[in-house]
């Protein structure tokens, strides 16, 4: 069994209202050093695959088919074997 962990983030230049709202709150709490906040999401999927290569191929296909919208989002993924 393989576990793929996707990190999905909005592309640079796409407005990130959640990040902006957190930034405003941090500034209000006195963190004037904060100059930017971007939010994203983590998605973990367990995959039954025979090999690392097969798991990676499936993981990338799932990103294209559903998990990531390439118009607005970027992603990276990490793969690890789990029992």
């Amino acid at each position, binding site marked *: 069994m393989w576990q793929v962990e996707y990190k999905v983030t909005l592309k640079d230049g796409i407005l990130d*209202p959640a990040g902006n709202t957190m930034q405003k709150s941090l500034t209000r709490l006195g963190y004037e050093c904060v100059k930017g906040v971007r939010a994203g999401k983590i998605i973990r999927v367990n995959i039954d695959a025979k090999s690392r290569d097969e798991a990676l191929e499936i993981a990338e296909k799932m990103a294209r088919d559903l998990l990531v919208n390439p118009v607005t989002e970027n992603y990276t993924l990490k793969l690890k074997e789990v029992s």
Partner: protein
Amino acid sequence: MKFGIIIFPGSNCDRDCETALNYLDIQSQMIWHKDRDDLSAFDCLILPGGFSYGDYLRAGAMAARAPVMDAVEDFAKKGGPVIGICNGFQILLERKLLPGAMVTNQDMSFKCRYVHLRVENNQTSFTKEFNNGEIITLPIAHQEGNYFYPGKPEELEGQIIFRYSNPEGEVTPESNPNGSWQNVAGIINKKGNVLGMMPHPERAVEPVLGNGTNDGTRIFISILKSLL
């Protein structure tokens, strides 16, 4: 003449559409999201508003991959008129039947109010009952209506159908309720048979609901007349 209304889990404007069509004497039939039947017996398909699949992942993302959507895409590819309203617009974007994508409203808040729209192109089967530059009033109700297009406005020449404006018809940042690129409220595909719009025309048909506007009526009448 028969319109089909697609119901996804979480659609909540399907009956509003049915009621509006009844009021206009247009026959309609509900279509369940798991159906895979050919839809060519219908004259027009409506993807109604709501929160399909709880808006999980991205608004419209799951519904765009629902079983019924293969038949919807076939219908659209053959030139059949398809209108996506609010969540229906998001679904059409996620299905790539329309260009661009939808992100959260600029100020993170749910917008539920009447807006002014400027009709940008009346040479379509959805807008022929309007005049170009006409200002109409329709209600919006959404949190993910911030339209984004990753290119230049010229690339969508003629495809921007409605833009948020002030009552005088000026397209200003102040009249943009959600931060949409180019104040876009509604766009059409290149072929001209698929329309997506965030405002709700079905809520501005019956006088008892429209809060003084029945501008939604002319969208449905435009479709009817283009089918005759």
